[in-house]
Protein backbone atom coordinates (compact mmCIF):
# COMPACT_ATOMS: atom_id res chain seq x y z
CA UNK A 1 0.00 0.00 0.00
CA UNK A 2 1.29 3.40 -0.92
CA UNK A 3 2.11 5.54 2.04
CA UNK A 4 0.91 9.12 2.38
CA UNK A 5 4.51 10.12 2.06
CA UNK A 6 4.94 8.47 -1.33
CA UNK A 7 1.57 9.72 -2.46
CA UNK A 8 2.57 13.31 -1.83
CA UNK A 9 5.88 12.65 -3.57
CA UNK A 10 4.03 11.12 -6.51
CA UNK A 11 1.83 14.14 -6.90
CA UNK A 12 4.89 16.34 -6.73
CA UNK A 13 6.56 14.32 -9.49
CA UNK A 14 3.51 14.39 -11.70
CA UNK A 15 2.81 18.09 -11.45
CA UNK A 16 5.47 19.53 -13.81
CA UNK A 17 4.21 17.38 -16.68
CA UNK A 18 0.58 18.19 -15.95
CA UNK A 19 1.17 21.91 -15.57
CA UNK A 20 3.23 22.14 -18.75
CA UNK A 21 0.69 20.24 -20.83
CA UNK A 22 -2.12 22.24 -19.30
CA UNK A 23 -0.38 25.48 -20.23
CA UNK A 24 0.44 24.16 -23.71
CA UNK A 25 -3.17 23.28 -24.26
CA UNK A 26 -4.99 26.16 -22.65
CA UNK A 27 -2.85 29.25 -23.32
CA UNK A 28 -2.45 29.04 -27.12
CA UNK A 29 -5.85 27.50 -27.69
CA UNK A 30 -7.68 30.22 -25.81
CA UNK A 31 -5.61 32.78 -27.68
CA UNK A 32 -6.72 31.20 -30.96
CA UNK A 33 -10.33 31.31 -29.84
CA UNK A 34 -9.94 34.96 -28.83
CA UNK A 35 -8.24 35.92 -32.12
CA UNK A 36 -10.91 34.13 -34.10
CA UNK A 37 -13.41 36.75 -32.97
CA UNK A 38 -11.17 39.68 -33.92
CA UNK A 39 -10.71 41.60 -37.11
CA UNK A 40 -6.94 41.44 -36.91
CA UNK A 41 -4.38 41.44 -39.72
CA UNK A 42 -0.64 41.50 -39.11
CA UNK A 43 -0.17 43.79 -42.10
CA UNK A 44 -2.37 46.35 -40.38
CA UNK A 45 -1.97 45.66 -36.67
CA UNK A 46 -3.53 48.94 -35.63
CA UNK A 47 -6.99 47.57 -36.30
CA UNK A 48 -8.12 44.88 -33.93
CA UNK A 49 -11.84 45.32 -33.66
CA UNK A 50 -14.33 42.79 -32.36
CA UNK A 51 -15.58 40.81 -35.31
CA UNK A 52 -18.20 38.52 -33.80
CA UNK A 53 -18.78 35.42 -35.87
CA UNK A 54 -17.80 37.07 -39.13
CA UNK A 55 -14.42 35.31 -39.37
CA UNK A 56 -16.16 31.96 -39.11
CA UNK A 57 -18.78 33.05 -41.59
CA UNK A 58 -16.08 34.21 -43.97
CA UNK A 59 -14.00 31.06 -43.57
CA UNK A 60 -16.89 28.63 -43.86
CA UNK A 61 -18.50 30.31 -46.89
CA UNK A 62 -15.21 30.75 -48.74
CA UNK A 63 -15.24 28.35 -51.72
CA UNK A 64 -11.66 27.48 -50.75
CA UNK A 65 -12.96 25.99 -47.50
CA UNK A 66 -15.26 23.58 -49.29
CA UNK A 67 -12.45 22.59 -51.66
CA UNK A 68 -10.07 22.13 -48.73
CA UNK A 69 -12.56 20.07 -46.77
CA UNK A 70 -13.17 17.80 -49.75
CA UNK A 71 -9.43 17.49 -50.34
CA UNK A 72 -8.81 16.69 -46.69
CA UNK A 73 -11.40 13.92 -46.77
CA UNK A 74 -10.06 12.55 -50.07
CA UNK A 75 -6.50 12.68 -48.81
CA UNK A 76 -7.29 10.94 -45.53
CA UNK A 77 -9.67 8.45 -47.16
CA UNK A 78 -7.38 7.68 -50.09
CA UNK A 79 -4.31 7.12 -47.96
CA UNK A 80 -6.27 4.99 -45.50
CA UNK A 81 -7.68 2.85 -48.30
CA UNK A 82 -4.25 2.19 -49.80
CA UNK A 83 -2.42 1.65 -46.53
CA UNK A 84 -5.03 -0.58 -44.89
CA UNK A 85 -5.55 -2.88 -47.88
CA UNK A 86 -1.88 -2.81 -48.87
CA UNK A 87 -0.76 -3.12 -45.27
CA UNK A 88 -2.97 -6.15 -44.62
CA UNK A 89 -1.73 -7.92 -47.74
CA UNK A 90 1.86 -7.03 -46.90
CA UNK A 91 1.46 -8.23 -43.32
CA UNK A 92 -0.02 -11.55 -44.52
CA UNK A 93 2.91 -11.95 -46.91
CA UNK A 94 5.56 -11.12 -44.32
CA UNK A 95 3.96 -13.51 -41.86
CA UNK A 96 4.82 -16.43 -44.19
CA UNK A 97 8.07 -18.33 -43.89
CA UNK A 98 10.44 -16.27 -46.04
CA UNK A 99 14.18 -16.49 -46.51
CA UNK A 100 15.72 -13.25 -45.32
CA UNK A 101 12.53 -12.10 -43.59
CA UNK A 102 14.40 -9.68 -41.36
CA UNK A 103 15.91 -7.88 -44.33
CA UNK A 104 12.62 -7.69 -46.22
CA UNK A 105 11.01 -6.23 -43.15
CA UNK A 106 13.70 -3.58 -42.95
CA UNK A 107 13.21 -2.71 -46.63
CA UNK A 108 9.45 -2.39 -46.20
CA UNK A 109 9.73 -0.34 -43.04
CA UNK A 110 12.29 2.15 -44.35
CA UNK A 111 9.95 4.76 -45.92
CA UNK A 112 8.41 5.46 -42.52
CA UNK A 113 11.72 6.89 -41.31
CA UNK A 114 12.21 9.24 -44.23
CA UNK A 115 11.43 12.82 -43.28
CA UNK A 116 8.34 14.21 -45.06
CA UNK A 117 10.20 16.94 -46.95
CA UNK A 118 12.70 14.44 -48.36
CA UNK A 119 10.13 11.93 -49.51
CA UNK A 120 7.96 14.63 -51.06
CA UNK A 121 10.88 16.20 -52.95
CA UNK A 122 12.33 12.89 -54.09
CA UNK A 123 8.98 11.80 -55.48
CA UNK A 124 8.26 15.20 -56.98
CA UNK A 125 11.55 15.63 -58.78
CA UNK A 126 13.07 12.26 -59.38
CA UNK A 127 9.92 10.27 -60.10
CA UNK A 128 7.00 12.51 -61.06
CA UNK A 129 8.84 15.25 -62.94
CA UNK A 130 7.42 15.23 -66.49
CA UNK A 131 10.82 15.81 -68.13
CA UNK A 132 13.50 14.12 -66.08
CA UNK A 133 11.50 11.96 -63.70
CA UNK A 134 11.80 8.21 -63.74
CA UNK A 135 8.12 7.80 -64.63
CA UNK A 136 8.64 10.09 -67.62
CA UNK A 137 11.63 7.99 -68.74
CA UNK A 138 9.51 4.87 -68.40
CA UNK A 139 6.63 6.39 -70.37
CA UNK A 140 8.96 7.46 -73.15
CA UNK A 141 10.51 3.99 -73.25
CA UNK A 142 7.04 2.61 -73.97
CA UNK A 143 6.38 5.35 -76.51
CA UNK A 144 3.83 7.11 -74.31
CA UNK A 145 3.43 10.78 -73.53
CA UNK A 146 4.89 11.58 -70.08
CA UNK A 147 2.25 12.56 -67.56
CA UNK A 148 2.71 15.68 -65.44
CA UNK A 149 1.53 14.18 -62.17
CA UNK A 150 1.65 17.22 -59.90
CA UNK A 151 0.10 19.57 -62.46
CA UNK A 152 -2.74 17.34 -63.65
CA UNK A 153 -3.41 15.09 -60.69
CA UNK A 154 -1.93 16.99 -57.74
CA UNK A 155 -4.07 15.51 -55.00
CA UNK A 156 -3.73 11.98 -56.33
CA UNK A 157 0.06 12.39 -56.49
CA UNK A 158 0.19 13.62 -52.91
CA UNK A 159 -2.00 10.69 -51.83
CA UNK A 160 0.54 8.34 -53.45
CA UNK A 161 3.48 10.00 -51.71
CA UNK A 162 1.81 10.00 -48.31
CA UNK A 163 0.59 6.43 -48.75
CA UNK A 164 4.16 5.35 -49.48
CA UNK A 165 5.20 6.89 -46.17
CA UNK A 166 2.42 5.32 -44.12
CA UNK A 167 2.14 1.88 -45.73
CA UNK A 168 5.07 0.58 -43.61
CA UNK A 169 3.38 1.76 -40.43
CA UNK A 170 0.14 -0.07 -41.24
CA UNK A 171 2.01 -3.18 -42.37
CA UNK A 172 4.19 -3.29 -39.26
CA UNK A 173 1.30 -2.90 -36.82
CA UNK A 174 -0.88 -5.42 -38.63
CA UNK A 175 2.06 -7.84 -38.78
CA UNK A 176 2.54 -7.47 -35.03
CA UNK A 177 -1.14 -8.23 -34.52
CA UNK A 178 -0.99 -11.22 -36.89
CA UNK A 179 1.90 -12.72 -34.99
CA UNK A 180 -0.20 -12.87 -31.85
CA UNK A 181 -2.77 -15.09 -33.56
CA UNK A 182 -3.60 -18.44 -32.09
CA UNK A 183 -1.80 -20.88 -34.39
CA UNK A 184 -3.67 -23.90 -33.05
CA UNK A 185 -6.97 -22.40 -34.04
CA UNK A 186 -5.64 -21.83 -37.55
CA UNK A 187 -4.34 -25.39 -37.78
CA UNK A 188 -7.63 -26.78 -36.51
CA UNK A 189 -9.64 -24.82 -39.05
CA UNK A 190 -7.32 -25.99 -41.81
CA UNK A 191 -7.86 -29.60 -40.75
CA UNK A 192 -11.58 -29.02 -40.77
CA UNK A 193 -11.18 -28.10 -44.42
CA UNK A 194 -11.49 -24.32 -44.31
CA UNK A 195 -9.91 -22.74 -47.39
CA UNK A 196 -7.52 -19.81 -47.23
CA UNK A 197 -10.25 -17.30 -48.04
CA UNK A 198 -12.72 -18.45 -45.45
CA UNK A 199 -9.89 -18.64 -42.92
CA UNK A 200 -8.98 -15.06 -43.78
CA UNK A 201 -12.50 -13.72 -43.49
CA UNK A 202 -13.66 -15.74 -40.48
CA UNK A 203 -10.48 -15.95 -38.41
CA UNK A 204 -7.77 -13.51 -39.49
CA UNK A 205 -9.87 -10.45 -40.24
CA UNK A 206 -11.82 -10.54 -36.96
CA UNK A 207 -8.53 -10.94 -35.12
CA UNK A 208 -7.07 -7.97 -36.98
CA UNK A 209 -10.13 -5.75 -36.58
CA UNK A 210 -8.84 -4.12 -33.40
CA UNK A 211 -5.41 -3.39 -34.88
CA UNK A 212 -7.01 -2.06 -38.06
CA UNK A 213 -9.18 0.29 -36.03
CA UNK A 214 -6.13 1.55 -34.16
CA UNK A 215 -4.22 2.09 -37.41
CA UNK A 216 -7.15 3.96 -38.96
CA UNK A 217 -7.56 6.25 -35.98
CA UNK A 218 -3.88 7.02 -35.44
CA UNK A 219 -3.23 7.60 -39.11
CA UNK A 220 -6.27 9.86 -39.34
CA UNK A 221 -4.90 12.05 -36.57
CA UNK A 222 -1.63 12.45 -38.46
CA UNK A 223 -3.18 12.63 -41.94
CA UNK A 224 -5.53 15.45 -40.99
CA UNK A 225 -2.42 17.53 -40.36
CA UNK A 226 -0.47 16.73 -43.54
CA UNK A 227 1.46 19.88 -44.33
CA UNK A 228 5.08 19.52 -45.45
CA UNK A 229 4.25 17.24 -48.38
CA UNK A 230 1.87 19.84 -49.80
CA UNK A 231 4.17 22.77 -49.08
CA UNK A 232 7.14 21.39 -51.01
CA UNK A 233 5.28 19.77 -53.90
CA UNK A 234 2.36 21.93 -55.01
CA UNK A 235 1.95 24.77 -52.52
CA UNK A 236 -1.67 23.75 -52.41
CA UNK A 237 -2.24 24.34 -56.11
CA UNK A 238 -2.97 24.56 -58.91
CA UNK A 239 -5.69 26.83 -57.53
CA UNK A 240 -6.95 24.98 -54.47
CA UNK A 241 -6.64 21.56 -56.10
CA UNK A 242 -4.35 20.17 -53.40
CA UNK A 243 -5.06 22.47 -50.46
CA UNK A 244 -6.20 20.72 -47.31
CA UNK A 245 -7.58 22.38 -44.19
CA UNK A 246 -4.18 22.51 -42.50
CA UNK A 247 -2.59 24.14 -45.52
CA UNK A 248 -5.49 26.56 -45.94
CA UNK A 249 -5.17 27.75 -42.35
CA UNK A 250 -1.41 28.11 -42.79
CA UNK A 251 -1.89 30.16 -45.97
CA UNK A 252 -4.54 32.33 -44.35
CA UNK A 253 -2.39 32.93 -41.27
CA UNK A 254 1.21 33.17 -42.37
CA UNK A 255 0.90 34.06 -46.06
CA UNK A 256 -2.02 36.50 -45.88
CA UNK A 257 -1.35 37.46 -42.25
CA UNK A 258 -5.07 37.27 -41.54
CA UNK A 259 -4.93 36.37 -37.85
CA UNK A 260 -8.70 36.46 -37.36
CA UNK A 261 -9.59 34.30 -40.35
CA UNK A 262 -6.70 31.91 -39.77
CA UNK A 263 -7.70 31.46 -36.15
CA UNK A 264 -11.29 30.70 -37.09
CA UNK A 265 -9.95 28.08 -39.52
CA UNK A 266 -7.69 26.68 -36.81
CA UNK A 267 -10.62 26.23 -34.46
CA UNK A 268 -12.56 24.44 -37.19
CA UNK A 269 -9.58 22.12 -37.70
CA UNK A 270 -9.53 21.44 -33.96
CA UNK A 271 -13.22 20.53 -34.00
CA UNK A 272 -12.74 18.16 -36.95
CA UNK A 273 -9.78 16.46 -35.27
CA UNK A 274 -11.73 16.12 -32.02
CA UNK A 275 -14.42 14.09 -33.71
CA UNK A 276 -11.78 11.50 -34.64
CA UNK A 277 -9.97 11.82 -31.33
CA UNK A 278 -13.04 10.88 -29.29
CA UNK A 279 -13.22 7.49 -31.00
CA UNK A 280 -9.50 6.86 -30.63
CA UNK A 281 -9.51 7.78 -26.96
CA UNK A 282 -12.34 5.38 -26.32
CA UNK A 283 -10.36 2.54 -27.92
CA UNK A 284 -7.23 3.26 -25.94
CA UNK A 285 -9.15 3.88 -22.74
CA UNK A 286 -10.69 0.41 -22.97
CA UNK A 287 -7.23 -1.06 -23.31
CA UNK A 288 -6.08 0.73 -20.18
CA UNK A 289 -8.57 -1.16 -18.05
CA UNK A 290 -7.50 -4.55 -19.35
Amino acid at each position, binding site marked *: MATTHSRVAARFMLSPAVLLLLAWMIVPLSMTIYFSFLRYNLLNPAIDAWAGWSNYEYFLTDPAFFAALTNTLLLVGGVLLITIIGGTLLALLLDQPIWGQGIVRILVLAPFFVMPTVSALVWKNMFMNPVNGLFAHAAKAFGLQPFDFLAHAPLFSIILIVAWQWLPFAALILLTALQSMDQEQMDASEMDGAGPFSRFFYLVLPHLSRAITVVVLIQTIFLLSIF*AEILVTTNGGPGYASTNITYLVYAQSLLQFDVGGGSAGGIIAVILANIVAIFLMRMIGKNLEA
Partner: protein
Amino acid sequence: MARSISRRRQVVVTLLAWAIGLAIFFPILWTILTSFKTEAEAIASPPSLFMFDWTLENYGEVQERSNYFRHFSNSVIISLGSTLLGLLIAIPAAWSMAFVPAKRTKDILMWMLSTKMLPPVGVLIPIYLLFRDTGLLDTRTGLVIVLTLVNLPIIIWMLFTYFREIPGEILEASRMDGAQLWDEIIYVLTPMAIPGIASTLLLNVILAWNEAFWTLNLTAAKAAPLTAFIASYSSPEGLFYAKLSAASTMAIAPILILGWFSQKQLVRGLTFGAVK
Protein backbone atom coordinates in the same frame (compact mmCIF):
# COMPACT_ATOMS: atom_id res chain seq x y z
CA MET B 1 5.30 -34.77 -51.01
CA ALA B 2 3.82 -32.23 -48.63
CA ARG B 3 7.34 -31.11 -47.90
CA SER B 4 8.20 -30.34 -51.53
CA ILE B 5 4.99 -28.37 -51.98
CA SER B 6 5.74 -26.23 -48.97
CA ARG B 7 9.30 -25.82 -50.23
CA ARG B 8 8.03 -24.57 -53.58
CA ARG B 9 5.60 -22.33 -51.81
CA GLN B 10 8.36 -20.86 -49.70
CA VAL B 11 10.36 -20.07 -52.84
CA VAL B 12 7.39 -18.31 -54.43
CA VAL B 13 6.53 -16.39 -51.27
CA THR B 14 10.16 -15.40 -50.77
CA LEU B 15 10.52 -14.10 -54.32
CA LEU B 16 7.27 -12.16 -54.04
CA ALA B 17 8.18 -10.67 -50.69
CA TRP B 18 11.63 -9.61 -51.91
CA ALA B 19 10.18 -8.08 -55.08
CA ILE B 20 7.65 -6.05 -53.12
CA GLY B 21 10.18 -5.13 -50.45
CA LEU B 22 12.63 -3.87 -53.04
CA ALA B 23 9.88 -1.95 -54.87
CA ILE B 24 8.90 -0.17 -51.67
CA PHE B 25 12.52 0.55 -50.84
CA PHE B 26 13.38 1.60 -54.39
CA PRO B 27 12.84 5.39 -54.04
CA ILE B 28 15.34 5.42 -51.16
CA LEU B 29 17.82 3.26 -53.04
CA TRP B 30 17.42 5.47 -56.10
CA THR B 31 18.09 8.59 -54.04
CA ILE B 32 21.24 7.06 -52.56
CA LEU B 33 22.49 5.97 -55.99
CA THR B 34 21.72 9.33 -57.59
CA SER B 35 23.71 11.10 -54.90
CA PHE B 36 26.84 9.47 -56.33
CA LYS B 37 26.16 10.55 -59.92
CA THR B 38 27.12 13.73 -61.72
CA GLU B 39 24.25 16.10 -62.47
CA ALA B 40 24.33 15.09 -66.13
CA GLU B 41 24.12 11.40 -65.31
CA ALA B 42 21.38 12.04 -62.77
CA ILE B 43 18.97 13.16 -65.48
CA ALA B 44 20.33 10.95 -68.28
CA SER B 45 17.78 9.05 -70.32
CA PRO B 46 17.76 6.10 -70.11
CA PRO B 47 19.01 6.26 -66.53
CA SER B 48 21.56 3.74 -65.38
CA LEU B 49 21.22 1.87 -62.14
CA PHE B 50 24.81 1.07 -61.21
CA MET B 51 26.92 1.65 -64.34
CA PHE B 52 28.03 5.23 -63.92
CA ASP B 53 31.13 7.04 -62.74
CA TRP B 54 30.71 7.11 -58.99
CA THR B 55 31.61 10.46 -57.50
CA LEU B 56 31.53 12.07 -54.08
CA GLU B 57 31.59 15.65 -55.32
CA ASN B 58 27.89 16.28 -54.58
CA TYR B 59 28.44 15.74 -50.90
CA GLY B 60 31.27 18.24 -50.83
CA GLU B 61 29.31 20.74 -52.82
CA VAL B 62 26.21 20.56 -50.64
CA GLN B 63 28.33 21.28 -47.58
CA GLU B 64 30.23 24.06 -49.32
CA ARG B 65 27.24 25.89 -50.74
CA SER B 66 24.83 25.75 -47.88
CA ASN B 67 26.80 24.89 -44.78
CA TYR B 68 25.02 21.60 -44.52
CA PHE B 69 26.73 20.75 -41.27
CA ARG B 70 25.02 23.58 -39.43
CA HIS B 71 21.57 22.28 -40.36
CA PHE B 72 22.65 18.81 -39.43
CA SER B 73 23.78 19.94 -36.00
CA ASN B 74 20.54 21.92 -35.62
CA SER B 75 18.66 18.69 -36.21
CA VAL B 76 20.80 16.82 -33.70
CA ILE B 77 20.45 19.50 -31.04
CA ILE B 78 16.72 19.97 -31.53
CA SER B 79 15.80 16.28 -31.61
CA LEU B 80 18.13 15.21 -28.81
CA GLY B 81 17.46 18.31 -26.74
CA SER B 82 13.68 18.01 -26.91
CA THR B 83 13.82 14.28 -26.19
CA LEU B 84 16.10 14.61 -23.17
CA LEU B 85 14.12 17.51 -21.76
CA GLY B 86 10.95 15.52 -22.36
CA LEU B 87 12.38 12.50 -20.54
CA LEU B 88 13.40 14.67 -17.62
CA ILE B 89 9.80 15.82 -17.20
CA ALA B 90 8.18 12.54 -18.16
CA ILE B 91 10.14 10.00 -16.12
CA PRO B 92 8.92 11.24 -12.71
CA ALA B 93 5.39 11.66 -14.04
CA ALA B 94 5.22 8.18 -15.57
CA TRP B 95 6.86 6.69 -12.51
CA SER B 96 4.32 8.15 -10.16
CA MET B 97 1.36 7.11 -12.29
CA ALA B 98 2.65 3.57 -12.75
CA PHE B 99 3.55 2.88 -9.11
CA VAL B 100 1.33 5.15 -7.07
CA PRO B 101 -1.86 5.08 -9.11
CA ALA B 102 -4.58 7.33 -7.81
CA LYS B 103 -8.26 7.39 -8.62
CA ARG B 104 -7.73 9.90 -11.39
CA THR B 105 -4.60 8.43 -12.96
CA LYS B 106 -6.50 7.03 -15.90
CA ASP B 107 -8.24 10.35 -16.54
CA ILE B 108 -4.92 12.18 -16.40
CA LEU B 109 -3.35 9.77 -18.87
CA MET B 110 -6.26 10.09 -21.27
CA TRP B 111 -6.22 13.85 -20.96
CA MET B 112 -2.49 13.94 -21.71
CA LEU B 113 -3.11 11.88 -24.80
CA SER B 114 -5.87 14.24 -25.86
CA THR B 115 -3.37 17.10 -26.04
CA LYS B 116 -1.56 15.13 -28.74
CA MET B 117 -4.76 15.09 -30.78
CA LEU B 118 -4.79 18.86 -30.96
CA PRO B 119 -4.00 19.71 -34.59
CA PRO B 120 -0.98 22.00 -34.76
CA VAL B 121 -2.76 24.57 -36.95
CA GLY B 122 -5.14 25.13 -34.07
CA VAL B 123 -2.35 26.84 -32.15
CA LEU B 124 -0.12 28.00 -35.02
CA ILE B 125 -0.93 31.70 -34.78
CA PRO B 126 -0.57 32.14 -31.01
CA ILE B 127 2.70 30.19 -30.94
CA TYR B 128 4.00 32.15 -33.89
CA LEU B 129 3.09 35.47 -32.29
CA LEU B 130 4.39 34.48 -28.85
CA PHE B 131 7.65 33.36 -30.44
CA ARG B 132 7.91 36.56 -32.44
CA ASP B 133 7.37 38.71 -29.37
CA THR B 134 9.79 36.77 -27.18
CA GLY B 135 12.50 36.48 -29.82
CA LEU B 136 12.22 32.71 -30.02
CA LEU B 137 11.45 32.61 -33.74
CA ASP B 138 14.20 30.85 -35.65
CA THR B 139 16.04 29.73 -32.54
CA ARG B 140 16.95 26.21 -31.51
CA THR B 141 15.72 26.94 -27.99
CA GLY B 142 12.27 27.75 -29.31
CA LEU B 143 12.05 24.55 -31.31
CA VAL B 144 13.31 22.45 -28.41
CA ILE B 145 10.52 23.89 -26.26
CA VAL B 146 7.78 23.28 -28.82
CA LEU B 147 8.91 19.77 -29.77
CA THR B 148 9.26 18.82 -26.10
CA LEU B 149 5.65 19.81 -25.49
CA VAL B 150 4.41 18.22 -28.69
CA ASN B 151 6.02 14.87 -27.92
CA LEU B 152 5.62 14.89 -24.14
CA PRO B 153 2.35 12.90 -24.18
CA ILE B 154 3.94 10.15 -26.29
CA ILE B 155 6.99 10.03 -24.02
CA ILE B 156 4.86 9.79 -20.88
CA TRP B 157 2.63 7.13 -22.38
CA MET B 158 5.47 4.98 -23.63
CA LEU B 159 7.27 5.16 -20.30
CA PHE B 160 4.04 4.43 -18.48
CA THR B 161 3.40 1.25 -20.49
CA TYR B 162 6.96 0.09 -19.76
CA PHE B 163 6.96 1.02 -16.09
CA ARG B 164 3.62 -0.69 -15.58
CA GLU B 165 5.26 -4.00 -16.45
CA ILE B 166 7.83 -3.70 -13.69
CA PRO B 167 6.50 -5.87 -10.85
CA GLY B 168 5.39 -3.65 -7.98
CA GLU B 169 6.27 -6.34 -5.42
CA ILE B 170 9.94 -5.61 -5.89
CA LEU B 171 9.31 -2.07 -4.77
CA GLU B 172 7.26 -3.26 -1.83
CA ALA B 173 10.12 -5.54 -0.82
CA SER B 174 12.71 -2.81 -1.01
CA ARG B 175 10.41 -0.55 0.94
CA MET B 176 10.16 -3.21 3.65
CA ASP B 177 13.93 -3.20 3.77
CA GLY B 178 13.69 0.45 4.65
CA ALA B 179 14.69 1.96 1.31
CA GLN B 180 13.85 5.62 0.87
CA LEU B 181 11.99 6.93 -2.14
CA TRP B 182 15.13 8.10 -3.90
CA ASP B 183 17.04 4.90 -3.10
CA GLU B 184 14.10 3.04 -4.54
CA ILE B 185 14.29 5.01 -7.74
CA ILE B 186 18.05 4.86 -8.15
CA TYR B 187 18.86 1.31 -7.10
CA VAL B 188 15.72 -0.67 -7.82
CA LEU B 189 13.71 1.05 -10.48
CA THR B 190 16.33 2.56 -12.75
CA PRO B 191 18.11 -0.65 -13.74
CA MET B 192 14.78 -2.26 -14.61
CA ALA B 193 13.51 0.79 -16.41
CA ILE B 194 16.53 1.48 -18.58
CA PRO B 195 15.45 -0.63 -21.57
CA GLY B 196 12.08 1.13 -21.66
CA ILE B 197 13.69 4.54 -21.32
CA ALA B 198 16.14 3.72 -24.10
CA SER B 199 13.34 2.69 -26.46
CA THR B 200 11.39 5.81 -25.65
CA LEU B 201 14.43 7.94 -26.31
CA LEU B 202 15.04 6.26 -29.65
CA LEU B 203 11.50 6.63 -30.92
CA ASN B 204 11.25 10.24 -29.85
CA VAL B 205 14.52 11.23 -31.43
CA ILE B 206 13.12 9.80 -34.67
CA LEU B 207 9.81 11.64 -34.31
CA ALA B 208 11.53 14.92 -33.48
CA TRP B 209 14.08 14.53 -36.27
CA ASN B 210 11.33 14.13 -38.85
CA GLU B 211 8.88 16.67 -37.43
CA ALA B 212 7.97 18.96 -40.30
CA PHE B 213 5.22 21.31 -39.23
CA TRP B 214 6.75 23.37 -36.46
CA THR B 215 10.27 23.16 -37.87
CA LEU B 216 9.05 24.56 -41.20
CA ASN B 217 6.91 27.30 -39.70
CA LEU B 218 9.11 28.52 -36.87
CA THR B 219 12.54 28.60 -38.47
CA ALA B 220 14.23 30.56 -41.22
CA ALA B 221 17.90 30.34 -42.14
CA LYS B 222 19.54 30.26 -38.72
CA ALA B 223 17.94 27.47 -36.72
CA ALA B 224 16.55 25.44 -39.60
CA PRO B 225 17.00 21.72 -39.06
CA LEU B 226 17.30 19.33 -41.99
CA THR B 227 13.55 19.12 -42.62
CA ALA B 228 13.44 22.84 -43.34
CA PHE B 229 16.79 22.85 -45.13
CA ILE B 230 15.65 20.16 -47.56
CA ALA B 231 12.40 22.04 -48.12
CA SER B 232 14.48 24.92 -49.47
CA TYR B 233 15.38 22.61 -52.34
CA SER B 234 11.79 22.60 -53.53
CA SER B 235 12.72 25.06 -56.26
CA PRO B 236 14.72 25.70 -58.29
CA GLU B 237 17.67 23.85 -56.73
CA GLY B 238 15.51 20.74 -56.65
CA LEU B 239 16.27 20.37 -60.31
CA PHE B 240 19.85 19.53 -59.36
CA TYR B 241 18.98 15.92 -58.67
CA ALA B 242 22.40 14.75 -57.62
CA LYS B 243 22.77 17.49 -55.01
CA LEU B 244 19.20 17.05 -53.79
CA SER B 245 19.96 13.33 -53.45
CA ALA B 246 23.18 13.90 -51.57
CA ALA B 247 21.49 16.28 -49.12
CA SER B 248 18.56 13.87 -48.72
CA THR B 249 20.78 10.86 -48.18
CA MET B 250 22.68 12.57 -45.41
CA ALA B 251 19.40 13.74 -43.86
CA ILE B 252 17.77 10.32 -43.71
CA ALA B 253 20.74 8.02 -43.15
CA PRO B 254 21.10 8.46 -39.37
CA ILE B 255 17.40 7.97 -38.78
CA LEU B 256 17.13 4.96 -41.07
CA ILE B 257 19.80 3.29 -38.99
CA LEU B 258 18.21 4.28 -35.68
CA GLY B 259 14.81 3.31 -37.02
CA TRP B 260 15.84 -0.22 -37.80
CA PHE B 261 16.77 -0.71 -34.17
CA SER B 262 13.43 0.58 -32.99
CA GLN B 263 10.96 -1.54 -35.00
CA LYS B 264 9.38 -3.18 -31.97
CA GLN B 265 9.15 -0.03 -29.87
CA LEU B 266 7.61 1.77 -32.80
CA VAL B 267 4.47 -0.35 -32.69
CA ARG B 268 4.14 0.03 -28.99
CA GLY B 269 4.96 3.71 -28.86
CA LEU B 270 2.79 4.84 -31.71
CA THR B 271 -0.26 2.82 -30.74
CA PHE B 272 0.00 3.91 -27.09
CA GLY B 273 0.17 0.31 -26.03
CA ALA B 274 -3.05 -0.63 -27.83
CA VAL B 275 -1.18 -3.11 -30.07
CA LYS B 276 1.73 -5.09 -28.70
